[in-house]
């Protein structure tokens, strides 16, 4: 236990990141026990009330209790991010290993697609996809849509890492001693890549959450779900800023900022583990 605490002092970013995300988790869990989630639906409360004892986060124009919305919406937003992030890194890892280990035509194709895909602004492609699908999306469908692009960046970075690892001595030895390709990938390369994969995963989740919030703010998200992005969409739709209903946008903003800061510090912390050379110099 003391070892863990000592490590945290050397890696404050990791500690900060975990703390931020943990507090968010606490908020959702404890809040879920104290507040009725049904109040996140419209017409549950008097409209446009400023924060008070009854409604600590206030209410919006459709009569939603914003506290309930935040408690219900945060896990939804995070879920989209996690599903898309995991899918993206999962697919990306497989593709990256195939490309980097087997090289040749496969590598050229995979790398070419990833490179060109990355020049295209993701949000716009997502918009086209979302607009082309019939009807509005559910939360899970949105995750799949975001995942469709989430694998591009991980493929590229993981491929670069595998390429550099591939030339190391122990891989040569494994190959010469007759280990099969997939076996080498699983037992030799993968364990050394784990910290890097973890950092990439957090990164991907963060990017996926950003993409999903972006789609929602533009009105392409699950219209009935009380996610953070959709709340901001309604904020924009109802010109909440001009009308002075500050609490409406303040709550989601604070939570989104916490999410991103938490994920950011987590990434920095993981990077330090993955790349010892980055450890606090200066």
């Amino acid at each position: 236990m003391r070892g863990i605490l000592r490590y945290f002092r050397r890696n404050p970013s990791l500690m900060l990141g975990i703390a931020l995300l943990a507090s968010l988790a606490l908020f959702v869990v404890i809040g879920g026990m104290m507040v009725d989630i049904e109040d996140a639906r419209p017409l549950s409360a008097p409209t446009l009330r400023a924060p008070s004892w009854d409604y600590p986060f206030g209410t919006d124009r459709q009569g939603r209790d914003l506290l309930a919305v935040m408690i219900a919406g945060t896990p939804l937003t995070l879920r989209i991010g996690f599903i898309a992030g995991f899918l993206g890194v999962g697919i990306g890892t497989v593709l990256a290993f195939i490309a980097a280990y087997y090289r040749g035509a496969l590598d050229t194709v995979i790398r070419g697609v990833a490179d060109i895909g990355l020049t295209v602004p993701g949000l716009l492609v997502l918009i086209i996809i979302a607009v082309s699908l019939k009807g509005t999306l559910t939360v899970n469908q949105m995750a799949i849509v975001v995942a469709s692009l989430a694998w591009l960046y991980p493929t590229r970075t993981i491929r670069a890492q595998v390429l550099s690892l591939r030339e190391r001595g122990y891989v040569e030895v494994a190959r010469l001693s007759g280990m099969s390709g997939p076996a080498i990938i699983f037992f030799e390369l993968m364990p050394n890549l784990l910290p890097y994969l973890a950092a990439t995963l957090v990164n991907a989740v963060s990017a996926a959450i950003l993409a999903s919030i972006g789609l929602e703010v533009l009105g392409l998200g699950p219209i009935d779900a009380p996610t953070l992005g959709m709340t901001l969409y309604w904020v924009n739709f109802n010109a909440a800023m001009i009308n002075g209903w500050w609490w409406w946008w303040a709550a989601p903003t604070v939570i989104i900022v916490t999410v991103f800061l938490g994920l950011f510090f987590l990434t920095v912390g993981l990077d330090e583990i993955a790349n010892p050379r980055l450890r606090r110099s200066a």
Partner: protein
Amino acid sequence: MQAAYVARRFGVFLLIVWLAASLNFFLPRLSGQDPVRTKLLQQAALGGYVQGGIDEMTREYERQFGLDKPLWRQYLTYLDGVAHLDFNYSIANYPRRVSELIADALPWTLGLLGTTTLLSFAIGSFLGALLAWPGAPRWMRWLMPPLWALHAIPFFLLGLILTYLLAFQIPLLPIFGGYSAGAVPTFSWRFITDVLQHALLPALSIILVATGGWALGMRGMMVTTMGEDYVTFAEAKGLKAPTVFLRYCLRNAILPQVTALALALGQILSGAVLVEVIFGYPGIGTLLFQAIRENDHFVIQGVVFTVIVALGFTTFVLDVIYPWLDPRISYRRT
């Protein structure tokens, strides 16, 4: 030899253009039929919209894509239209054509995005370099935490916060729009200041967030560069500190930064679109947003296509500039 490199890069650019156009063509037909066509036919059958012109549009759409023409025929006709920058009429704004709308909105976005990206890159990189340099003034270290905190949040969120603080609580700057309602766009001084005032908040939201990112990246690059042998030799030569800083460290550390810029363009643009939406800034972001609201498929497709092409072109330009910055990359290799 140089021409071959440029030609190859240009080829990649054309490939991107073609991919973008194909994206626009095939994705809407993913669900088995073309939602655009369905909607148009629907409206035409109902006897038209409030806006009218639906029959016109349907007819043109039919002409372009044809009811019974095979898919590949439709595809070729579509590509032909794209090559002529013809995106049909805007469904919601008939009789204005999509290309007109984009032409109106594009300069605003280019102005905002162009200046903010260049500024934040330049300021951020220089700041980052200084932060890594031991000879820099002590107080600069205090800039780090706010830069860190800021750069992790999306542009538009900072936009919201800034709007509240600087436009609402203290009515210093206008809340939204590109220029004051009722003002006539001219090249007068008054109009230009009006535009600048309105552009300030959106620009600030982007600059404050992006600068942090560039600064952090540059700082990391500088730390690596400063450990290189050629920096030690530079000091052994008795060069002055500014010379070592600029000619030996910064000049080398900037190279990966430029690569990062090329890769980040897509992200920056996505962020800028959302900023425009929050601020009602009359650029393509807002155009896109309205088009989504009004189900104006032609505008959506036109905007997405334009953006992809613009980004592809910028990447192409950066690709060509890069060997000039780094003599080790010869024009011969890919």
